[in-house]
């Protein structure tokens, strides 16, 4: 762990768990990483998860050696002694530049593509664009409500299941909603025109109540 005055704290333990958890990774493979300008390259096992590029001694390692936070970087091909060389470059004074090399042309292309689209900022741009498209299609773009997916994460990255509760959109192109199988009594149900977040919250409560009933039923002798 980093120590001493002036260094930032980071939840490294959680980071290590995130690096090695069994969810599918976004990209993985061997890369050669140059330690410094005049030092040799080390062959490391790299794992891309979200906007974090972890590197391990090998695929079986339990803990990463390090991580590169990929916000604000550019990825570029470089002319170097090694074949299939590329760099992850950050901006600003004395900014880091990670000199890396893949082991084949295909691997090089795969990594450059994956890393250049790995940032949170990029993903958020795409999501916002899709949000707007969907809002425009539903004709709800004007009310300022931001639609959120029907998911109620108690824990980030590990959500309790919920379901889609939007009312059917107007227009002949939209498929009908599948019929609800059963429904608890619904006092105080918000109107179908209520903002999505409100409907989502209401149905989430219904879900929890029904789950409680079901689980209660299961434990009876």
């Amino acid at each position, binding site marked *: *762990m*980093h120590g001493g005055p*002036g*260094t*930032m*704290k*980071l*939840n*490294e*333990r*959680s*980071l*290590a*768990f*995130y690096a090695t*958890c069994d*969810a*599918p990774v*976004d990209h993985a493979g061997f890369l050669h990483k140059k330690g410094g300008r005049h030092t040799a390259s080390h062959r490391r096992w790299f794992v891309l998860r*979200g*906007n974090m590029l972890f590197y391990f001694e090998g695929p079986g390692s339990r803990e990463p*050696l*390090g*991580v590169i*936070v990929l*916000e*604000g970087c550019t990825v570029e091909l470089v002319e170097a002694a090694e074949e299939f060389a590329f760099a992850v470059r*950050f901006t600003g004074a004395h900014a*880091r530049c990670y000199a890396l090399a893949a082991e084949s042309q295909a691997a090089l292309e795969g990594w450059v593509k994956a890393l250049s689209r790995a940032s*949170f900022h990029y*993903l*958020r741009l*795409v*999501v916002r664009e*899709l*949000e707007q*498209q*969907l809002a425009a299609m539903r004709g709800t773009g004007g009310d300022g409500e931001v639609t*959120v*997916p*029907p*998911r109620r*994460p*108690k*824990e*980030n*990255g*590990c*959500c309790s*299941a919920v*379901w889609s509760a939007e009312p059917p*959109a107007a227009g002949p192109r*939209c*498929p009908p909603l*599948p019929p*609800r*199988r059963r*429904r608890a009594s619904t006092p105080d149900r918000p109107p179908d025109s209520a903002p999505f977040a409100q409907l989502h919250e209401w149905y989430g409560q219904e879900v929890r109540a*029904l*789950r409680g009933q079901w689980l209660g039923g299961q434990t009876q002798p």
Partner: protein
Amino acid sequence: MRYNEKELRALSQQPAEMAAELSMRGPKKGSVAKRRLVKLVVNFLFYFRTDEAEPLGALLLERCRVSQEEPGGFSISFIEDPERKYYFECCTQEQCQEWMEALRRASYEYMRCSLIFYRNEIQKMTGKDPLEQFGISEEARFQLSSLPRDRRAACVGTQLDELD
């Protein structure tokens, strides 16, 4: 673990999704609550001494759990150790609610699930894949199959009987 601290510090200086002075207490036994400037930037929660420009620390918000603690307070913990909590106190329950919602949606994983959800919704309505215009429709990380089964259902909408 080594990390590019300089870049992380630079990130902490960027415009935040949310920022406020909150009371913060670390997970260690006997830790004391202190006033901190807390800033949410992408999937990191930075915290500063209230009169300093450089962050004291950062929490990566992946695989975290955000819970209500007493009225007006919340905690952040991580899946691998849910009892190890970072505590925060807000001025009002309203502010607390705002923070909890923002933090629950702050992870890269949540963003990815959102993308898959919107993609699916738009595809259902138009018959077209909206990711094609971005040239990313083939990426494995945006396929439904990249999500664990329980999250797949959440991202495309599911019926009551698919819960648990």
